[in-house]
Every structure is written in C-alpha cells, then in structure tokens.
C-alpha cells in the first residue's frame, strides 16, 4: 500500500480511461472461439477415442484456453489498474506499472508544479473524453505524463489547484 505523510490524504486517483482496458477485453473475447474453430480440423490422437473421450478432449482444450485467456486478461488488468497517479493534499505520486516486474514510483510536491499540459488526440479520445496530461515540475527536466487520463481538463484543474471546482469535478474521474 502507498505510504502517506502525516496529515496527507488522497484527493484524486487517476488511471487510464476504462476504454483502454475495454479494448483489451474485447480483443481477448475475440480470441475465445479460436481453438473451437481449429479443433474440428486437428487430429490429435492416432486412434480415435470414444465419444466420451472426444467430448472430454474438447472440454479440456476449451477450458485450458479459457483459463489461459482469463489469466492473460488479469495480467493486463493488473498493469492497467496499478498504473496510477495519486494526487494527494501535498504531493503527486506517479506510479508506473509496465509489466508485472517493472514498477516506477515518482513523487513531487504540488508546489513544484510549473506547467500542466493536456493533449486530446483522435476521435475516440474526443468521444470518450480522455487524453494525455503532462506535468512539468521545477526539479525535473522531463515532464511527468499520464496517458489516456479520463476527463483530462478536470485533472488539469485539480493539478493546477484551481480551487474547489477543479478538485471536486475531478474527484469523479
């Protein structure tokens, strides 16, 4: 779990838009029928097993494939869910999860923020209202970027500390 300082609380959690994981989910769903389509054309055993054996083989391959997809989807979801920005009352924590064994945690104080830039590119980004939010701080030469953040302008307002309005509207992200 994330360690917070004394008198510090999380104001906002920002992770990629649900559209990102929905697209991945749709791809995994499209892969479901693959072995069932192929199974009819593949002969595995030299002598044909009984009808029960054939049904068993069909169940076995189907279940193994579904289990594989299920696990792969959850690995994908974990990478999505743990890749998050936590905006607290004092700091911004950028947690970048790229793969199960690659995790980078950076934090900077809110008063160090110099510039917040939002870029919304593409039809889907406009339709679903998500975009990239990049933050330039006084200490780092490279900006911190969260990709495909939902309601990016609300996040920008919250980061720029534009009063209650920004934080309150972004809290629903």
């Amino acid at each position: 779990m994330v360690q917070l300082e004394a008198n510090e609380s999380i104001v906002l959690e920002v992770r990629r838009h649900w559209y990102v994981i929905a697209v991945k989910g749709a791809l995994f769903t499209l892969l479901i029928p693959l072995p069932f389509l192929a199974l009819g054309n593949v002969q595995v055993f030299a002598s044909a097993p009984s009808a029960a054996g054939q049904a068993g083989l069909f169940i076995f391959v189907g279940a193994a494939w579904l289990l594989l997809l299920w696990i792969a989807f959850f690995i994908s979801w974990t990478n999505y869910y743990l890749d998050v920005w936590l905006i607290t009352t004092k700091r911004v924590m950028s947690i970048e999860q790229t793969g199960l064994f690659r995790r980078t945690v950076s934090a900077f104080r809110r008063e160090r923020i110099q510039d917040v830039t939002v870029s919304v590119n593409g039809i889907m980004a406009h339709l679903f209202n998500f975009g990239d939010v990049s933050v330039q701080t006084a200490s780092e030469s490279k900006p911190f970027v969260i990709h495909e953040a939902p309601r990016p302008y609300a996040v920008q307002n919250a980061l720029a500390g534009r009063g209650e309005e920004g934080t309150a509207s972004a809290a629903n992200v």
Partner: protein
Amino acid sequence: MNISILLPAPLAPFFLWVVFGIAIVGFSSVSAILVYHWHAFGVNAKKMRRVTRIYFLVSAALLILLFIGVIAGSF
C-alpha cells in the same frame, strides 16, 4: 485444411494429465504473483478483495472443467 498431431492412443491420458499438471503449476505461480501485486500495491483494499474473489471463482470453475476434461478424455 486438416492437421494431424498424432499421439499413440495409450499416451492420451498421460498427455492430458501432464498438461493438467503444467496448467496447475502455471496457474498457481501466476496467481501468487497477481495476488501479491493486488495486495501490496493496490490502493483500494476493498476493491482488491472483490477482484481477488472474482478471479479465483472463475478460475476454480475453469480448473474444475479442465479436470472433468482430463477424466472424460482418458476414456
């Protein structure tokens, strides 16, 4: 197009049990890694508990199906 990957019939049950064993070991390893990540790095403990429950419920159903497949496929 017909593809043939021919295994001698007596090897069929053995082959299924080996694949089942590999599936169990693989599933246990990946699940342990996932659960560790969810509980060590998850921000919302309640949500992580719900996700863990869903993950293991569906996985258990698929593993039972896999086991039924091995038993039935052995005949």
